[in-house]
């Protein structure tokens, strides 16, 4: 299953990057499993992650665009190149434009790479070095231009990594190996997930490339199919223009027929326009419903949690089953003269837990919070109901319009058929071009559209069939990989969430996808997990994918703790520590003023496996940042002490 070799970053040098005002050259060795960049908000922590990704791939992911917009892995890679310039533009001063550059060193298997890029040259490299697994540098001619160096780098990279094109790496680095500030989640984005599944569970990486192309084709045929209806409408309009005739040559009765015909064509056009605008309204409604439903879901999870807090959990001593059981056990141990210290310890732990719990149970506060969320939830639900009603109104209107348009179409056809001679006369009256000929060409055009429509349909079905074949082989490969992948995912996810999680492969018309079943199936849908919990479950998935796909890798995580519940922060820290072992490393950024995540991470990893870098050495702080930074400095000292304790222990051991 270990089919890939992904880069394990060992060092990065950033030069003349104006945003980091204090340091002309920032040089960092990443020689421990966890590298964490800490600092106040607004100092450029996320930018650091972006620089690292840009150095490796030559692209910057545009946060405003979803993957669906690109529609394919190669299009994502090609279209993201130009965004790099606009991203770095505001972060690098005019005077540093040519000087600013980034150098990154990494290993793929035992092969060492070193590349240097300018920030405004996405398809070029300023330097490229590669040493094979014996440490011997490969020959690179000095005559190579910078864009040839870039080509060479990509060629070597593809060869050593086991991928079939560099675009696949750029895609994986952006969407899987990096959890960035856009928080795009694999589990909740079927377009990205499908591509990832083919890459990791397809027969080989070229299957992923094929599947990507097929999915792109299917979407293209679909869209072509829809466009043809619009084309036919346009043809109707042309017909109307075509019938602008010399009315003098017609009898009064003929005139009435022609007038009626013109009127009907006009009506057709008006109703068609109305139909289009209803289509837009419906789309807007769907968008609002989806948005509100997402908000309602995450509020509902919060609501359940606070509702539980509103119930005082103080079981009287005589009813506390756990306590009674321990007392019973102690009694039986005393009577049988056996040691019972273990049970006393359990008793102490139980008391401590209960004391801890009672800290969080201030009923008045939770009532207040519950009321607040209840009001918010209710207002979202009301809004959603309003939009739903609006949507239903438009749907009804759309249905009625379809019937009207169909009626008009029939009338037009009947008039044309019943009055063939009139329209032929018209053709005679038309001086320049014969109407009959025009009508013929119009009919031919419609026929062409119909043919194309049929062709799109056939091609779409063919592509679907092909994709189905790939799906089935991928599904087989997934089942094979389940033995290693599922337990890996489960161990990460469970250490974070504390619950058993099932992960299933689903195959349907929209494509392949992974879905979650938590515990007893009651949390099947995403809304049962809070937003931040979802982040970490998604990170767990990435860790598991890396675990089965490669022997070494660097995972990039940008300020992950977010609004994570305090109870989960240390669990999240443990999960990252569990992953960051051997040749797997995590490069992350954090704002540590309140996070338990880093404390736990530091506690587990200590000096040997963790390095913390402060941003205060890189740039100057504003007044507000200074205030925030005080808190960070104090938290930093705590973590530093934790790490140093270990250092002292290690030192004294030596």
């Amino acid at each position, binding site marked *: 299953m270990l089919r890939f070799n992904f880069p394990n970053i060992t060092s990065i040098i950033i030069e003349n990057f104006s945003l980091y005002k204090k340091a002309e050259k920032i040089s960092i060795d990443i020689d421990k499993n966890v590298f964490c960049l800490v600092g106040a908000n607004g100092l450029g922590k996320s930018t650091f992650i972006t620089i690292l990704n840009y150095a490796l791939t030559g692209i910057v992911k545009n946060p405003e665009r979803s993957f669906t917009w690109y529609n394919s892995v190669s299009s994502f890679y090609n279209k993201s190149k130009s965004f790099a310039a606009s991203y770095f533009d505001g972060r690098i001063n005019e005077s540093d434009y040519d000087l600013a550059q980034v150098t990154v060193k990494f290993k793929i298997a035992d092969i060492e790479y070193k590349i240097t890029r300018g920030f405004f040259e996405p398809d070029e490299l300023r330097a490229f070095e590669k040493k094979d697994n014996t440490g011997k540098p490969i020959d690179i001619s000095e005559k190579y231009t910078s864009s040839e160096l870039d080509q060479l780098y990509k060629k070597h990279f593809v060869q050593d990594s086991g991928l079939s094109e560099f675009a696949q790496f750029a895609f994986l680095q952006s969407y899987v190996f990096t959890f960035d500030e856009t928080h795009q989640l694999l589990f909740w984005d079927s377009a990205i997930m499908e591509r990832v599944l083919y890459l990791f569970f397809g027969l080989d990486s070229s299957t992923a490339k094929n599947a990507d192309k097929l999915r792109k084709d299917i979407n293209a045929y679909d869209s072509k199919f829809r466009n043809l209806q619009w084309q036919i409408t346009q043809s109707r309009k042309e017909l109307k223009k075509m019938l602008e005739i010399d009315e003098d040559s017609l009898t009064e009765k003929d005139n009435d027929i022609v007038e009626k015909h013109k009127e009907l064509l006009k009506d057709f056009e008006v109703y068609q326009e109305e139909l289009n605008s209803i289509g837009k309204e419906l789309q807007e409604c769907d968008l609002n419903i989806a948005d509100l439903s997402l908000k309602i879901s995450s509020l509902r999870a919060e*609501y359940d949690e606070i509702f*539980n807090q509103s*119930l005082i959990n103080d*079981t009287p001593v005589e009813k506390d089953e756990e306590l009674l059981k321990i007392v019973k056990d102690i009694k039986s141990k005393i009577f049988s003269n056996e040691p019972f210290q273990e049970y006393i310890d359990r008793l102490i732990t139980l008391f401590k837990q209960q004391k801890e719990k009672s800290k969080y149970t201030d009923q008045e506060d939770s009532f207040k919070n519950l009321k607040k969320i*209840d009001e918010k939830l209710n207002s979202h639900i009301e809004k959603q109901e309003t939009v739903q009603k609006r949507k239903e109104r438009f749907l009804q209107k759309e249905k009625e319009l379809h019937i009207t348009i169909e009626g008009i179409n029939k009338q037009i056809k009947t008039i044309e058929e019943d009055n063939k001679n009139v329209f032929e006369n018209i053709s005679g009256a038309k001086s320049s071009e014969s109407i009959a000929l025009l009508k013929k060409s119009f009919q031919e055009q419609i026929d062409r559209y119909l043919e194309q429509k049929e062709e799109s349909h056939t091609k779409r079905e063919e592509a679907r069939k092909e994709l189905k074949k790939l799906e089935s082989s991928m599904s087989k490969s997934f089942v094979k990989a389940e033995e290693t992948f599922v337990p890996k995912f489960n161990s990460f996810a469970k250490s974070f969430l504390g619950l058993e999680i099932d992960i299933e492969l689903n195959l349907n018309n929209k494509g392949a996808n992974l879905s979650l079943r938590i515990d007893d199936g009651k949390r099947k849908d995403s809304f049962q997990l809070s937003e931040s919990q979802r982040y970490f479950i998604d990170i767990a998935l990435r860790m598991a994918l890396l675990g089965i796909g490669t022997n070494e890798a660097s995972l990039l995580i940008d300020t992950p703790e977010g609004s994570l519940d305090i109870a989960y922060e240390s669990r999240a820290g443990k999960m990252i520590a569990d992953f960051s072992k051997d040749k797997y490393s995590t490069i992350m950024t954090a704002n540590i003023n309140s996070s338990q995540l880093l404390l736990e991470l530091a506690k587990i990893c200590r000096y040997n496996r963790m390095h913390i870098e402060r941003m205060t050495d890189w740039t100057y702080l504003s007044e507000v940042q200074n205030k925030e930074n005080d808190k960070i400095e104090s938290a930093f000292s705590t973590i530093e002490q934790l790490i140093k304790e270990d250092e002292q222990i290690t030192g004294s051991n030596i």
Partner: protein
Amino acid sequence: MNKSPEAIFDILYIGSHLQTKLEDFNLNEIQFMAYLSCLISLYDKNPIAFWKYKFIKNDYSSPYSVELHSSLNFLQKNSYINETTENYYQLTERGYSNLGFYDSLSSFKNRKKYLQIACNSLSIIPINIVKEAIRKEPIMKSAFHNPGKRFLLDKETPAMIALYNDFFNLHIAMNDDYNDLLAPAVVWLQSLSTKNPTIND
């Protein structure tokens, strides 16, 4: 622990009403009344998911929801309700205080309507007759004959279709003259109770 906000609220709400009428209540009565409320919500054209928790049939041909069971245990353990005689309960002061607060929340407003109708029907029909009637509604009746485990209210089972058919006939019979739901609920329960021999017979 399967307790849920809706189950907690339903127990406190139904419990307080039963207590007023019958002095105390037990889990079985709560299950029946909650199930009845859920059926009334379906009659009022709500989707099945509206009720938030599900029911199965227990070994005594009664509707059973694990959420209600766990929530009742929780409430009893933490003194929101007290046991009066074996397996019969009453709300404590703490129980009433929480019910008062939850009653003010918008989240329960919609379901309260149905709980209220179910509880009010007890002023007209005694609880044992209500229980007998519910045992004869199409879904419970079908579940009685079916030994397999499944959720009572599930989409598109023949029994579900029969239930909706009952509701449709009831709508027509009531001629939509009644704005409130109490009249159809009572008519339905009465018609069920006189319909067939009970399944226990």
